[in-house]
């Protein structure tokens, strides 16, 4: 079964239709998804700024990370749950959306950046834990994360605006656009 077929099947399930057509539930899920930015990205940004030496310079890096990480993790779980529900409410509309697709790629990059930081320069954190200005590789990881947050937020906000520009139902479109957006 192709991803497109799967999305079509998912869109026809009663739960997806109910969430899509609901008066308040969809808006509540969307609100939770957006406001969790404060918790998830908010706490992550503090860590990123510390890695760049732009805040809490006298606090150990490990302390900032270990004390704030549970809150970031709670935010991430909420984001993924509500995000999955938003996808479930309109699977085909998300799947055939260039901003949604780009957002998933950016999310992958953000995850990769965190993973590389933890596998790389963070292993030697004992040597620079109290440095007001962490080593260059840590600064780059923090800066890259900040850029990726802005990209993720922008792409997420743009998702409902694709229709102003293109729509799989409004053909003909160029082959490259149809490929990128995943039109049939």
């Amino acid at each position, binding site marked *: 079964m192709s991803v497109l077929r799967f999305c079509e099947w998912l869109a026809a399930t009663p739960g997806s239709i109910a969430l899509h057509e609901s008066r308040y539930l969809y808006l509540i899920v969307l609100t939770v998804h957006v406001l969790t930015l404060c918790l998830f990205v*908010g706490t992550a940004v503090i860590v990123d700024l510390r890695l760049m030496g732009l805040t809490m310079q006298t606090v150990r890096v490990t302390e900032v990370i270990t004390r704030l990480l549970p809150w970031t993790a709670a935010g991430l779980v909420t984001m993924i749950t509500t995000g999955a529900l938003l996808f479930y409410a309109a699977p085909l509309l998300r799947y055939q959306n260039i901003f949604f697709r780009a957002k998933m790629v950016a999310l992958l990059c953000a995850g990769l950046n965190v993973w590389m930081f933890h596998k790389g320069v963070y292993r030697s954190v004992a040597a620079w834990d109290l440095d007001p200005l962490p080593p260059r590789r840590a600064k780059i990881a923090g800066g890259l994360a900040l850029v990726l947050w802005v990209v993720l937020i922008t792409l997420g906000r743009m998702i409902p605006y694709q229709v102003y520009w293109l729509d799989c139902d409004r053909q003909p479109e160029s082959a490259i656009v149809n490929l990128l957006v995943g039109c049939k």
Partner: protein
Amino acid sequence: MSVLDFFKWLQYSQPLTMMRTSAWFFPIIASIHLTGLALIGGAVLVVDLRLLGLGLRQQPVSQIARDAERWLLVSLVVLLPTGILQFMCFAATKYYYLTAFWIKMAAICLALLFTFSVRRKITMSDEVHGSPVWSKLVAVISLSLWFTVAIAGRWIGFP
């Protein structure tokens, strides 16, 4: 000129008419506004969590508050202009009749007033101050006010 007259005048002024005809202007401004939301979330949460005895609880409140205040100010520099621009992207009279808009405006005023008066006084003083109950109350009020701002803000955009 009444408030409604002012909103009508604003609505039909030339730059606002131009901004409303662009499909891209609004979502881009809204994205920057949301980035500011994430930043203010971090700057407010890290201090309020500390007041509640959570998060960076081994550090003195005053130090965390001083570090966070800079980023709170940066977030406001991002949020206020983009918020005003978002307001300008739609018919101003739309907002005049939206309860959520007036709730948000009132909550912003209260939140800023509280943050830079009571909360600042409590968090910035270096001496041991008041009971922990008082600190926790300040954190709960601060979180409630900002939460109201965020919820009402989200509700402005709903059908």
